[in-house]
């Protein structure tokens, strides 16, 4: 039985467009806040995990790469990866790093630090990204964009590594947004 495609089945294209735009102009990274707030708002508004289930372009992209393009090995994820201890721990780590990014933005806003035109991959590797900023925005706005784009790129790289090692949507197992929305649903319904 073939199911009919809906508009939201093509949101993986939006994901690719997002990363492409951010490559040329870092200020587009701000748009990524939608992918941060919409899942939380939907969960709080009673749509539960509708974002993960329907509208997550990243999940669709991983399904496409791992499934259609056959990049996945289709192995089971290790037991520790799906444990609540790891999922909540990773969520905590992700939030700490997110707060660190906000702190750096604050330092640039207050003039204590200069704008760093780099994208930090996997929280460690600093990649030069100076071509994507032409100096049109105030430094703290650009700093947040560089920081947020780093978060988005890092999570996507982790997702791609996960799909290569295990199943297409293995990232969903420990995705901080997925864990957060499930926690909201638990708090509401249990």
């Amino acid at each position, binding site marked *: *039985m073939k199911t009919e495609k809906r508009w939201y089945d093509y949101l993986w294209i939006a994901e690719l467009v997002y990363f492409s735009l951010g490559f040329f102009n870092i200020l587009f990274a701000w748009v990524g806040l939608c992918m941060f707030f919409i899942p939380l708002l939907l*969960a709080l508004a009673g749509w*539960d*995990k509708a974002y*993960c*289930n*329907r509208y997550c372009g990243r*999940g669709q992209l991983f*399904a496409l790469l791992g499934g259609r393009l056959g990049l996945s090995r*289709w192995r*089971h*994820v290790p037991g520790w990866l*799906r444990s609540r201890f790891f*999922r909540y721990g990773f969520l905590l780590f992700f939030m700490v790093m997110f707060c660190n990014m906000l702190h750096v933005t604050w330092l640039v806003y207050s003039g204590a630090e200069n704008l760093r035109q780099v994208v930090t991959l996997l929280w460690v590797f600093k990649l030069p990204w100076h071509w994507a900023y032409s100096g049109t925005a105030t430094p703290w706005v650009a700093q947040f964009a560089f920081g947020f784009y780093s978060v988005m790129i890092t999570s996507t790289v982790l997702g791609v590594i996960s799909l290569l090692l*295990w*199943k*297409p*949507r*293995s*990232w*969903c*197992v420990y*995705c901080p947004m*997925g*864990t957060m*929305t*499930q926690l*909201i*649903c*638990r708090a*509401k*319904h*249990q």
Partner: protein
Amino acid sequence: MKQKKCAVVNRELCVACGSCQKVCPMGAIRVYKGLYAITDGARCIGCGRCAKECPASVISLEARHEN
């Protein structure tokens, strides 16, 4: 008496991502209130697509007996 298989979800470990409901050809599995996936035993044909797709590998096919 014939034996059929049906998808069973480990609710404790399910991450409610919805991968299973996307691939189910019968619409027999869905995410319940964002908590975990649940299967409709009457609809499930035991094809195993959901179990294969599940990123957390928390769906198994278990035998059920029918008269």
